[in-house]
C-alpha cells in the first residue's frame, strides 16, 4: 500500500504545442451558438457513425431491408391512385395521377420519417447522454440524414415511373439538389423542436403521428395546390412542405411553380423554425442529462 507516484520527467507523446489558453471553458451558460456549431463540425465523424449505425441496425432487423423504403411510398401511391385518382377523380395538372402522387410522396416520406424518428431520439439515448459528451444536436440530425438513404432508394422508383410515362425532363431538374436540401432543412427544423419538446413533455411522442397526419393533408400531395381557394393561398404558403412538394413536381413534371412570394414565405418560415428550434434545443440541451 501507499506506493507513491512521484511525478517524473516525462516525454510527451501527445500533441506538445497546446494553445496557451484553455481549449474548453465550462460554465453555467450554454455558450455561443456559433461556437457550438463549430464544435459540432469537429465531431462530424461521430455523426457519420451514428447514421451508419441506425441504417445498419434498421436493415439488419427487417426481412425486406431497404425494400421498405420503396414499399411504403409505392403502396401509398397505389392507394391514392385508386381512391383519389380513380374514384374521386382529383385533377392532377394533366399529369398521370400515379406519377403525380408518387412525386409528392417522395419528399413527404423523407419529412415524415425524420419527424417520427427524431422525436424520441434524445430520450431513447438517455444512457448515452448521461455517460458521454458529444454535440447533442446530432441526435435529431441522425434520423434526418438516415432518411436520405431511404429517399435515394425510393427515388429509383421515381426514375422508373418517369421513364415509364415517358416524361421529358427540362431545366427544372437542375433545381432538384436545392429542393432536396430544402426538405432536409425543413425536416431538421421541425425535428429539432419535437426532440427538444419531447424531453420536457413525453406526450409529444403520442402527438406526432397525429401531427404528421394533419400535416399530410395540409400539404398538396394527394391533391393539386391549384385546388386551394385563392383567399387561403397566403396561409397555405406558411407550410413550407407545400412549396417543396410543388417544387418537386415543377422540377420533374413541369407543373406550375408556386408564386415567388409564396416561396419566400416558405423559406422564411423554414429558417425561422430552424433558428428557433436550434436555440430552443440548445437551451434544453443544458438540462437534458438532468431531465431524462
Amino acid at each position, binding site marked *: *500500500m*501507499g*506506493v*507513491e*507516484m*512521484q*511525478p*517524473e*520527467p*516525462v*516525454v*510527451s*507523446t*501527445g*500533441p506538445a504545442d*497546446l*494553445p496557451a489558453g*484553455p*481549449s*474548453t*471553458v*465550462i*460554465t*453555467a*451558460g*450554454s455558450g455561443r451558438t456559433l461556437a457550438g456549431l463549430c464544435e459540432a463540425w469537429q*465531431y462530424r*465523424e*461521430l455523426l*457519420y*457513425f451514428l447514421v*451508419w*449505425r441506425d441504417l*445498419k*441496425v434498421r436493415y*439488419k*432487423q427487417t426481412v425486406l431491408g431497404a425494400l421498405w423504403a420503396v414499399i411504403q411510398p409505392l403502396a401509398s401511391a397505389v392507394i391514392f391512385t385508386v381512391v383519389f385518382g380513380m374514384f374521386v377523380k382529383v385533377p392532377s395538372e394533366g399529369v398521370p395521377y400515379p406519377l403525380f402522387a408518387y412525386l409528392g410522396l417522395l419528399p413527404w416520406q423523407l419529412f415524415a420519417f425524420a419527424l417520427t424518428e427524431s422525436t424520441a431520439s434524445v430520450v431513447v439515448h438517455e*444512457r*448515452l*447522454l*448521461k*455517460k*458521454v*459528451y*458529444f454535440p447533442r444536436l446530432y441526435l435529431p440530425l441522425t434520423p434526418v440524414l438516415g432518411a436520405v438513404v431511404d429517399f435515394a432508394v425510393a427515388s429509383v422508383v421515381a426514375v422508373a415511373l418517369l421513364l415509364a410515362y415517358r416524361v421529358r425532363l427540362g431545366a427544372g431538374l437542375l433545381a432538384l439538389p436545392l429542393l432536396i436540401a430544402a426538405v432536409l432543412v425543413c425536416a431538421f427544423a421541425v425535428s429539432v423542436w419535437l426532440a427538444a419538446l419531447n*424531453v*420536457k*413533455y*413525453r*406526450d409529444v411522442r403520442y402527438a406526432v403521428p397525429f401531427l404528421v397526419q394533419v400535416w399530410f393533408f395540409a400539404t398538396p400531395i394527394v391533391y393539386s395546390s391549384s385546388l386551394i381557394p385563392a383567399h387561403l393561398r397566403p396561409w397555405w404558403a406558411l407550410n413550407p412542405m407545400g412549396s417543396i412538394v410543388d417544387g418537386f413536381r415543377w422540377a420533374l413534371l413541369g407543373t406550375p411553380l408556386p408564386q415567388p412570394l409564396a416561396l419566400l414565405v416558405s423559406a422564411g418560415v423554414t429558417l425561422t423554425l430552424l433558428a428557433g428550434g436550434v436555440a430552443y434545443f440548445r437551451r434544453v440541451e*443544458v438540462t437534458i*442529462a*438532468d*431531465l*431524462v
Partner: protein
Amino acid sequence: MIVGELAIRADGLCKRYLMGSSASYLSLRESLAVLPRRLLGREARPDRQNELWALREVSFAVGRGEVLGVIGHNGAGKSTLLKILSRITRPTAGRAEVWGRVGSLLEVGTGFHPELTGRENVFLNGAILGMRRAEIERKYDAIVGFAEIDQFLDTPVKHYSSGMYMRLAFAVAAHLETEILLVDEVLAVGDAEFQKKCLGKMEDVHRGGRAVLFVSHNLAAVERVCSRVMVLDHGGVRFMGEPSEAVRRYLTSTEGALTGEWHHPEPFTGRTQILRAFLCDANGVPNGNPDCGTTFGVVIEFSVGERLRELILGMAVCNQYQVPVFSTSPSDVGVAVPLEPGTYRTKVLFPRGFLMPKGFSLIISLYNRWQGLDSHSHIMPFKVHAVDSVATATPTGRLGDVFAECAWDVIGRLPEKSTRPVS
C-alpha cells in the same frame, strides 16, 4: 518538462439538483394541471427543501502528467464532478477550464449496440468516446489483441458472454488517448488480471504527460496509481493532498456514520429496485452492532415493478479499502427470488465469526442476464466488533478480512533425508 503545465483548473464549481416533481419531465396532463397556476403567476417556486447541492464551491487544479484521485462517500459529488468536467451536465455556478481533448470513461461499453458485430462496435464505441476514425483504424489491432476475442469479431455482441463483452468494451476505452482522461469506477469490472492490465494502462497514460482524474471506491487502487487525492464530502473538498493521508482521512470520516441501515436515496417509483437494507441478528431483528462471536446478517427489501423473466439478487461484502471480499446470492443455495410484481424482504446470514472484527460495506444489485436493474455500491458501512473468539485469539492480530475454520491435519512425519536441501 510537462509537469506544472495545467490540464484542468476548476474554480468554485457548484451544482444544484432540484428534487421531486419540479425536476423531472412532465406529462402534458401534469403541465395542463399546473397551467392555471402558471398563468396566474402563482407557480410554486422550487422550495429550499427540494434542492440538493451536489457540489459546493469546488476548486482545484490538475497538472499534465498527474493522476488525481477523487474519493468520497456515496452522494459526496464525485460523479457530478466528472459529469461537469466531461460536459454531460453544466455547473450551476463556477467555471472550469480544460486544456486539451477530454476523454471520459464513465462507463465502459457506452453506445455498444447488441445487433452490431464486435468489429462494428469497436468503431462505433471509439467514435462515441471521441476517437477519430483514422485513430481507431490505427489502433484496431491493438484493441482486438487487448480484448482477446479475435475469432468472434464478426459475431453480433448480443451473443457474447458478459466477460467477452466487457473485455472488448474495456479494450476500446483503454486505447483512448486524449490529453485528459476522466475515469469513473470502470475498474470494478473484469477479473483481477484484467484490472491489473487497466491500472497499468493508466500509469502509462500519466507517464505520457496526460492528466487523469480517477474516481473510484477502490481505495487500494487509488492509493496505488494517484499522485494526489481529493476527498469530497457532501459536495465540498474536505482534503486535497498526499494519497495515503487522503485515504486515512476518508476512513476516519466513515466511523461517525455507522447506522447499520440504508434507504434508497430516491423516492420509490414502483419500478424494480432495492428499497432498504439493514443489519440484523439471526432472527431478522435490526441490530446495528454486530460482533464476530454471534450470527448476524443483512435484511434486504426490494420491489419488483413488472413481471420479470429472471431476477438475480447479488450482494458483495467489501473491506474497508472497498475491495470486494466475497459475494453471495440466494441462487447460490437454491433459493428462488420472486418474479411477480410486489415488495419482498430477504434475509442473508453470514456464518458465525466469518467476518473479522473490521470495517465493511456492501454492494447490492438487482440484475438479470439482459440488464442491470438497480445497483448500489459501498452502502451501509458497518463495523464488526471484537469479542473473544478463535478469530481474535492470535495476540498479534490476524491477517485478512474473513475467517474460516479450515480442515487442518498433521498427516505424518517425513523421513530425515528428504528434508535435506538438494545439492
